[in-house]
């Protein structure tokens, strides 16, 4: 079973040389720490920055330089700044190659719910609806089950949707799964020490298991 950093580390293997990538808040942010040396990737922050760098050194924070999570950050050699219309313009035009974000639920046809729990305080969707509606390649980073022990990989989402038919891949503490074009979660990899039966038990939606399922290489 993986911890959060393990999930981030596995997702980092999906990041290929030359990609522009948007990382959501939470586990996705950690992915930046595991991108292999020699892989050139540009991180987009939807508040208007390409080429997001690491946090600043203490004392060098700039209130005018933040990411979409409102954290102080830095630029890199080759960074560019632009306004919010252009930022979401490049997202809608699918210039951003890969979007990695968290989710509360994913359905077997690729729907995602991650912005609202009715009856609880609603914070808003931010840029998530734009990202999931536009990105060609969306990977969800999340726990396989919620705190109540219920599966988050469902036949249908029960929470208000963020987007429909958009998630391509899911990485959890238990497994890597592809969302099939015609519906269903195809099990691709097991986390170290996790059995197919455990994954099956934690997955409420249709799970496809074909042949031997390899263990993740991290």
């Amino acid at each position: 079973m993986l911890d959060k950093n393990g999930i981030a580390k596995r997702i980092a293997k999906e990041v290929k040389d030359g990609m522009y990538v948007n990382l959501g808040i939470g586990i996705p942010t950690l992915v930046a720490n595991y991108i292999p040396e020699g892989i050139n990737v540009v991180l987009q922050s939807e508040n208007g920055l390409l080429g997001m760098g690491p946090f600043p050194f203490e004392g060098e924070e700039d209130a005018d330089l933040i990411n979409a999570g409102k954290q102080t950050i830095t630029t890199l050699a080759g960074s560019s700044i632009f306004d919010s219309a252009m930022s979401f313009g490049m997202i809608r035009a699918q210039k951003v190659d890969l979007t990695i974000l968290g989710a509360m639920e994913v359905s077997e046809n690729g729907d995602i719910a991650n912005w609202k729990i009715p009856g609880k305080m609603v914070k808003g969707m931010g840029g998530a609806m734009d990202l999931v509606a536009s990105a060609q390649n969306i990977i969800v980073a999340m726990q396989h089950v919620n705190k109540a022990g219920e599966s988050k990989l469902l036949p249908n989402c029960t929470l208000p949707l963020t987007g429909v038919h958009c998630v391509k891949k899911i990485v959890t503490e238990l497994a890597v799964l592809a969302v099939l074009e015609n519906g269903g979660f195809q099990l691709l990899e097991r986390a170290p020490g996790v059995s197919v039966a455990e994954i099956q038990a934690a997955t409420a939606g249709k799970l496809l298991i074909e042949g031997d399922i390899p263990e993740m290489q991290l």
Partner: protein
Amino acid sequence: MINKVVKDADTAIKDIQNGQTIMLGGFGLCGIPENCIQALLRKKVTDLTCISNNAGVDDFGIGLLLQQRQVKKMISSYVGENAEFERQLLSGELEVELIPQGTLATRCMAAGYGMPVIYTPAGVGTEVAIGKETRVFNRKEYLMEYAFDAEFAIVKAWKGDTAGNLIYKSTARNFNPVMAMAGKITIAEVEILVPAGELDPDQIHTPGIYVHRIFQGGNYEKRIEQRTVRIK
């Protein structure tokens, strides 16, 4: 050149009336028009509809307008860092319309570029789509979203000149340029105001034609929401 300079924030916002719609630039607390927000607090104008990506925090930014109950309705994409906001929302004192961030930005741009509507896939198949016209282009479904119609846009830039030209600094740019284009009347506060001719025409982010009033603000606090650092 046409001189757009006004004396101060109070002069700049003096004709904003109760019940009007205003846009406020900024992302979180980054790049917000601090001086104009203070002037709105002094003016005590009420029943405002505020179009702004966020709603500030309890004791800063738009949160201060909420504390004084000056806001009737917020149109935002993310409002999560504000307990007073939550209280007013749950008690029904405050209306909130949550819309995707890219939709918010693009509806501003549409106003500034004279486009009555734009199409976006954001929100298709979600509750955001309820009541909205949809249309399929190239086998993809889009929502039709209207250009905003705001009496005032209030933005913050880094540098400006007397002709109203604006230059933003770093990610404090965010929504400011698109809102600057979108107001029937646009008010800009800047950290540094220079005479026309001192800015390079090639580096202007917002041409002065979009800006009706400009003044040099002061006492910028520029509060940081999430101070994240690494150790040397």
